[in-house]
């Protein structure tokens, strides 16, 4: 529980877009949490960072672009959005390459967020 009496809900996005529905359905789960006025945090781990690629264009694969929904999260009040610094390094990316401003976290900072969350959802 955070100081405000709200629950800390942590959402881990671990998969790249389009190969399966977890990214799109994870986004829907985060949006649902936004409505409840809780302490919501989202961390993109591993291949999940590709959900935030700047130039996503699923037109050639005839699928819907759910990923632009992540960019809209701050509009819905979800402002604590992070990426794993290690994942960025692994794929030679920087936060400048991403579709939205996010803070990159070291492993220890991610651990700390996991250790203090009330519940952790992974997608």
């Amino acid at each position, binding site marked *: 529980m955070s100081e405000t009496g709200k629950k800390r809900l942590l959402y*881990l996005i*671990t998969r790249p877009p389009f190969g399966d529905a977890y990214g799109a359905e994870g986004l829907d789960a985060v949006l649902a949490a936004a409505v409840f006025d809780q302490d919501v945090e989202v961390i993109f781990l*591993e291949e999940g960072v590709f959900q935030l690629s700047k130039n996503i264009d699923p037109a050639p694969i005839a699928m819907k672009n759910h990923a632009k929904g992540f960019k809209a999260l701050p509009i819905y009040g979800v402002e604590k959005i992070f990426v794993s610094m290690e994942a960025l390094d692994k794929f030679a990316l920087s936060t400048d390459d991403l579709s939205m401003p996010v803070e990159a976290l070291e*492993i220890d900072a991610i651990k700390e967020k*996991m*250790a203090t969350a009330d519940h*952790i959802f*992974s997608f």
Partner: protein
Amino acid sequence: MVLHIFNKGIRHRELLKTCAELIGPDDSLLLIEDGVIWAKEHKENALIQGLLDAGVQVHALQEDLTARGITAADAIATADYAQFVELTERHPRSVSWF
């Protein structure tokens, strides 16, 4: 204290690596479903050994071991479903890796 629940076999080594890096000293790892493959003594088990060396408790679900005819290495604690629940009682939060 986080209970990490991992259900994939060694084809998902990179996933276990990510999970292992995020396991804190007070956390525990529970291997279920295909994850119990990791509990068998095997070559290239540096990830599991690293966790054990760091003092992390590594458990494997007995029902899933039995179902697959696998015996866990001595260093791995086995847990049945009742003990799985007990682990979730002791760890206020869990994260599933799949």
